């Protein structure tokens, strides 16, 4: 469903966002303009829906809109997101974050298990999408390069393991190559 930002009532718009029925650009605009009140509303709806559908319960944290705002701001400043495609990917994944992000599960069997870490600050890499957490605000380009190489090595090793022990050898390699080819040239 395509929708206009100001045509639909606020509640309807948020509901569409929760149902993943907004375009990427709309999602991006919505999230930018979201108030804490909206976030609370979204959290309540999602909780209700998760309980109804017996999904693991996901909660939207209290400082949700502040985190999103910071993530978007950081994204605009970062030269790593210079490509329009990458920007769209972030917008789409930010929308995703409202739906699937912050997955705490309510499972009595897991009592005593460590809670999901409170300070989530992943470093975003090309080809990655933000699912939860915020971009590390102090991340330096050198640290990013290091982090990227570390992550790439992990991908290579995982792809190799997956190719030898998983279902099909070509698919893991295709994943890795496709990501490589879309890296921004240094």
């Amino acid at each position: 469903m395509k929708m206009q930002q100001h045509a639909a009532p606020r509640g309807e718009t948020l509901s569409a966002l929760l149902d993943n029925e907004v375009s990427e650009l709309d999602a991006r605009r919505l999230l930018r303009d979201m108030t804490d009140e909206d976030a609370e509303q979204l959290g309540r709806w999602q909780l209700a829906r998760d309980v109804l559908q017996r999904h693991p319960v996901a909660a939207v944290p209290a400082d949700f809109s502040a985190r999103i705002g910071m993530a978007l701001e950081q994204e605009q400043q970062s030269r790593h997101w210079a490509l329009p495609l990458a920007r769209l990917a972030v917008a789409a994944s930010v929308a995703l974050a409202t739906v699937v992000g912050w997955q705490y599960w309510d499972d009595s069997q897991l009592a005593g298990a460590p809670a999901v870490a409170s300070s989530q600050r992943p470093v975003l890499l090309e080809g990655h999408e933000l699912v939860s957490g915020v971009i590390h605000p102090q991340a330096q380009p050198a640290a990013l390069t290091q982090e990227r190489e570390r992550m790439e090595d992990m991908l290579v090793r995982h792809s190799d393991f997956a190719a030898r022990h998983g279902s099909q050898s070509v698919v893991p390699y295709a994943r890795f190559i496709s990501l490589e080819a879309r890296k921004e040239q240094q």
Partner: protein
Amino acid sequence: MWLRWLMVLLVGLALQAPAEELSAPQLLEKMSQAARALEYRGRLLYLHGNTVSTLELLHARFDGREHERLTQLDGQLAEVIRRGEQVVCVHADRTITRLVNRSSVTPLGLHERLSSSLPVQYQLLLDGEDRVAGRAAHQMRLLPLDQFRYGYRLWTDQESNLLLKSELVDTDGVVLERLEFVSLELQPQLTQADFEVPATLRERALDSLADDAHPSGRVSLKAGWLPDGFIEVDRDLRLSGGERRPVAAATYSDGLAAFTLFVEALPENAGEGISRMGPTLAISRHIAADSAGWLVTLVGEVPSLTGERVLANLSLGTSGASSD
């Protein structure tokens, strides 16, 4: 292997099934054998999210060793060349990573597992016939029986039994990635020269170390929870990244899906969080063990629910060398 073939033959005779009517498990078995045994060249499309890649695949056997080359055709050049147990990844910046696999662990891939039995966590359905890359294909579905893994849709070539198209499907039925041939040539007369590694600027070694060479390798992973059917299938310790830090890895698989846990001494400014690359999930967490800090990163094609739960129930020990 002999015995298995004999049994398949006997079962086939006992059921008196017509030769044309292959069951879905038989098709899967033939598919995994064809992919390794045949010589072929083809162009592929790889799709995930809003990205499309065009790839070329070469596959042949020389001296009984499998050779495979997968090359990105659009955008920057990246490729993977596999010659027997040696795997070379050519990165977009013309650096390469070499991996030589220690053959201590017998591969437990689809090839081996599917020919014995399909993991019980999946249901296999034959979906009739379709066409892919201009060729007649059998269509199959592998449905996961719980929410901790993804499902697959597979199309195999009726003539050669090669896998022509493959889709990874999440628990809501959304296709996360698709790899499909758009053209396929059988017996293209490839030579060893088609699998040569290109000249490069720099090698990024991912050197393999003995497990006891560094504390990272001696860390034992105690998985308090794993999805049913997942077992550890491989592990190693390698020097990784520009700083050549020792990073240990252990891979878990249910025969179809796989995820890898990476363990390293906590780097400075290490982040925690979740990110996603197409169907691949990556989650990093700090875990303390014996007064030392460790960074554990899970990378794999599993739902985030699965990844989070594995990490939340993971504990590390540094005393013993064994693991669960």
